[in-house]
């Protein structure tokens, strides 16, 4: 099933939660909506599910106008951040709920419902918990039951709101891999919302980066990481060093000193230079366009992370750099720095 969202606008009072959002999700995709809190990602998900209504715009599920139907008629599986399991029902009854509330004409008989619930509990590997109540389960188990419950209605699409947000780090990692494997088996078109970039990049086929109610970039995890479209995306995904620079006539200056890098077509004026921590080359003093004193070095794994105070320019700028451990840096050492890969974006006020 495909999902198409066209020109969606949603306002809460004067605050625009969604500002003209367009999105197309293909059949069988596992899409991540990634953004900081308040970026509108959950609102968008709830609008697709029918739990919220847009002020303007269209939502098409499989080409059919979804806004003409209420949430209960959209056949959309929704998994809530805090699970929202029915606390007075056993795990079994929770999963069976969607089947039991079907109109009598299409409702399955008890034996079929039981078999189906059993199948779903097997799928999430929790069939042995079927008589427990939600309060007796761990967070990870609750989330898997919530997923089984959503799948029970054979949803056309599956929507997950911060599915792992309330879980601890270890369980979260496992569930991530599990969700990806599950998706590659059942191939339901799915959208999940997250504020965790690692989660988005690791699980999704495509990532939609949102900020302030707008879509900043849509792309594969590789695209959004390696070719961020906007300053926001560059700053939000991956760790970046951001330096205020001036661009004029193709040359780039930091605090008045020219940097030996090309402007790459960036417009003249106040700009921001974005460099990934590991894309800053460290060399002996005098060999690069930036210079600074190493203040502090921490070594772990394959890298050493150095805190460098840039010399020159107004004020003291301290940046963090990831360098390979081929040459151990010393605190107090003067080094030169040269951006290997970088992006320049016009500075927003």
């Amino acid at each position, binding site marked *: 099933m495909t999902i198409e969202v066209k020109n969606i606008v949603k306002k809460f009072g004067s605050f625009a939660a969604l500002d003209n959002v367009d999105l197309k999700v293909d059949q069988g995709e596992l899409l991540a909506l990634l953004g900081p809190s308040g970026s509108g990602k959950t609102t968008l998900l709830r609008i697709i599910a029918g739990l919220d209504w847009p002020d303007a715009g269209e939502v098409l599920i499989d080409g059919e106008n979804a806004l003409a139907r209420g949430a*209960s008629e959209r056949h959309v599986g929704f998994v809530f951040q805090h699970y*929202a*399991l029915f606390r007075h029902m056993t795990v079994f009854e929770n999963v069976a709920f969607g089947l039991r509330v079907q109109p009598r004409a299409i409702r399955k008989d008890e034996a079929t419902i039981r078999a189906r619930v059993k199948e779903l509990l097997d799928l999430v590997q929790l069939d042995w918990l079927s008589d427990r109540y939600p309060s007796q389960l761990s967070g990870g188990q609750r989330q898997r039951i919530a997923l089984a419950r959503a799948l029970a209605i054979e949803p056309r699409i599956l929507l997950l709101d911060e599915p792992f947000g309330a879980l601890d780090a270890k369980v979260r990692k496992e569930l991530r891999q599990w969700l990806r494997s599950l998706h590659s088996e059942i*191939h339901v078109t799915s959208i999940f919302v997250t504020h965790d970039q690692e989660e988005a990049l690791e699980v999704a086929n495509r990532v939609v980066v949102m900020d302030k109610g707008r879509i900043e970039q849509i792309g594969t995890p590789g695209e959004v990481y390696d070719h961020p479209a906007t300053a926001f995306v560059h700053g939000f995904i991956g760790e970046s060093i951001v330096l205020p620079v001036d661009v004029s006539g193709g040359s780039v200056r930091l605090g008045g000193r020219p940097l030996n890098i090309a402007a790459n077509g960036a417009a003249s004026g106040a700009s921001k230079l974005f460099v990934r921590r590991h894309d800053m080359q460290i060399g002996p003093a005098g060999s690069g366009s930036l210079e600074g004193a190493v203040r502090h070095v921490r070594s772990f794994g394959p890298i050493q992370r150095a805190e460098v105070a840039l010399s020159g320019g107004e004020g003291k700028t301290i940046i963090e750099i990831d360098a390979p451990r081929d040459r151990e840096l010393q605190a107090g050492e003067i080094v030169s720095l040269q951006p290997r890969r970088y992006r320049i974006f016009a500075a927003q006020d």
Partner: protein
Amino acid sequence: MSTQSSVVTSATELRAYAPTADLTVSPPPSRIERARPRTGTSPDNLRTEPGPVRFIIITLAVTFLSVFVVLPLVVVFASAFSKGIGTYLAALGEPEALSAIKLTLLVAAISVTLNLVFGVIAAWAIAKFDFTGKTFLITLIDLPFSVSPVISGLVFVLLFGAQGFFGTWLQAHDIHILFAVPGIALATIFVTFPFVARSLIPLMQEQGTQEEEAAISLGASGLQTFFRVTLPNIKWGLLYGVLLCNARAMGEFGAVSVVSGHIRGETNTMPLLVEILYNEYQFVASFAIASLLAMLALITLVVKTVLERRLDEGQEPRDH
């Protein structure tokens, strides 16, 4: 639609993908474990004051309760049975007494039923939706608590009395509200309205709307959502509210006294009859009716304690 059918057909292959780490689940909390927080705040663990101080405080509290609560209760029953059980039963068998009991039960049944419906609707509206004037509505719900019951009764006299707002119209159509059952029921409904709504609002607010949203997204209709999800979640709170509402409805004196007209054998409820009989020096009869109300209070107290325990247990521990 072909993709949908494949959702679970491959359940067995997928077993392999399920995460393994949290399969070692902690056993469900046993009764002892659940009781632990309770013992944590038991008096045994709060020995912060020296012995004599504790003794004095406890003695004061017990003495106070004995004098002001237990003693009157004992007096009620002692006076009721002072002339023997025969006289007691005879007093309750009087037509006037039977009529008062019947009227009280009828009024309680009407007002509890209506307040159950209105209370749930009001609590639902307040807890689950945001709308302008919500704070005003919450304040309004509390109004019967803050107004003197006599005033509450008087309001209905002003509305439906002969000189009242609707008086002429009612008279023209021969409809009797004041000094009749409808007036007594209206006054009782007004006075007892907050109980159900008040006991549900915090509960429903705490539970939020997520379970309802989940039910709707699973295809449940509004009614199915209410009866299968909302109602089971609030049932203990609802019973609690109904219980208190009923106790107040049966015991209400002030408001009912104003609108009843005190027509013997017709518009006297139990509390009104207690006063009338007492004023006529029929102490045994008066205390016999009073003893019924006292028993109602005792039963209410026991049921309330049980319900409060169920409410505490129903409280799910917050997500971790």
